[in-house]
């Protein structure tokens, strides 16, 4: 996959909207294209978190494994969604498994590299944190609503 295509995909993605040209370039420099088959794990709970992903297409299931039971699916993510915020929050490890359900193409971004750049340039850090806080907020809100068990017998 050419750099030009990666650049196009990333610059058009709503997540990177309004990001300064030079920061986008930086991010493109840290990006690579990855393909997963159903059943693959993109990452496992407890592993170190050094990447994040933009799902181009496919479906990824966020799961927590429970001994003696089937793993609990917290949420599934699909086309265009951002996967993984643990890379930007110390101590940088994954809180759940990300298992691929359907053939999935992602753009993987090198978190370690980006983290260093964020320490050097706080402005870049702020731009990324802003965006990730928004992701975390969405996930939190969705989880809270799930907790309400709205369709339960009441």
């Amino acid at each position, binding site marked *: 996959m050419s750099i030009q295509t990666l650049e196009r995909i990333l610059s058009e993605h709503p997540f990177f909207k309004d990001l300064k040209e030079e920061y986008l370039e930086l991010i493109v420099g840290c990006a690579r294209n990855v393909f997963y088959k159903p059943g693959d794990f993109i990452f496992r709970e407890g592993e170190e978190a050094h990447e994040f992903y933009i799902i181009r297409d496919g479906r990824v299931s966020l799961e927590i494994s429970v001994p003696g039971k089937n793993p609990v699916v917290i949420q*599934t993510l699909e086309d265009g969604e951002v996967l993984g915020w643990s890379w930007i929050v110390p101590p940088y490890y994954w809180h759940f498994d990300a298992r691929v359900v359907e053939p999935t193409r992602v753009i993987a971004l090198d978190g370690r590299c980006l983290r260093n750049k964020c320490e050097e340039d706080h402005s870049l850090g702020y731009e990324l944190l802003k965006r990730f806080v928004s992701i975390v907020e969405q996930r939190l809100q969705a989880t809270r609503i799930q907790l309400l068990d709205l369709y339960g017998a009441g």
Partner: protein
Amino acid sequence: MVQVEREIITKEANPMLPQLFVIRSRKLETSDTFTLELEPIESEVEFSFLPGQFNMIYVFGVGEVPISISGDPLKKNRITHTTRMVGTVTKAMGMLKRGDVLGIRGPFGTSWPVDRCENCDVVIVAGGIGLAPLRPAIYYILANRERYNRVILLYGARTPEDILYKQEIEKWKSRFDFEVYVTVDRGTSGWKGNVGVVTTLIPRAPFESRNSVAFVCGPEVMMRFTAIELIKRGVKEDNIFISMERNMKCGIGLCGHCQFGPVFICKDGPVFSYNQVKDLLFKREI
């Protein structure tokens, strides 16, 4: 095609008197939800309704409950009701069989404004049993498909076992002119589809916000959060419609029970535009 008629008035001189209907079929949809198809006992009785309206259903000697009509508004004299067994009356209803008789009063209430716009996108968001009152609107829209642009259904159920109308949903999914997205709050093994609350489907749903009409039905909390997501997407507040619920006893605006602020859910609703009720929706104990 069939034009939507103006509000249908129950012909009864005494609106508290039920008409007798016989159960023609019964189907168990999930462990606690069933669908009944009813037919009037007397052939002269003509029953027609608008999508979104409800009936007051009477089980002999037990009581009466308001249940949305969930069948095809273009099929006269077949009334379908999908009901969840939650209380005395609905549990008694759940034990009835083909050939048993029920009392029906209705149809009452306001309807989904299916004729509100030409060439607009229609986004239908259903939560749990909320799919039942929306199904008549879906039937109507599909029967008049050329009038609309994109038609999208976002449906959230608790678990894959709680999905209603499973076979029908498969049929809908196979249509090229109807985009159906189903999600569950809790996945179970074998479920390969979406997991997450139905509101998570909204940001990416393929509709043109400025030219969209949304019909939302489900638990009140779900409708609140859904409306917020739709508005975030740019859908206009007076183009979002929800179906409210409150305790009902008479169904005709005379007993006072179903009041929600100044409106009676049974006659000013149950379908309201989000605009109409948004102020009260976020206040407690109204």
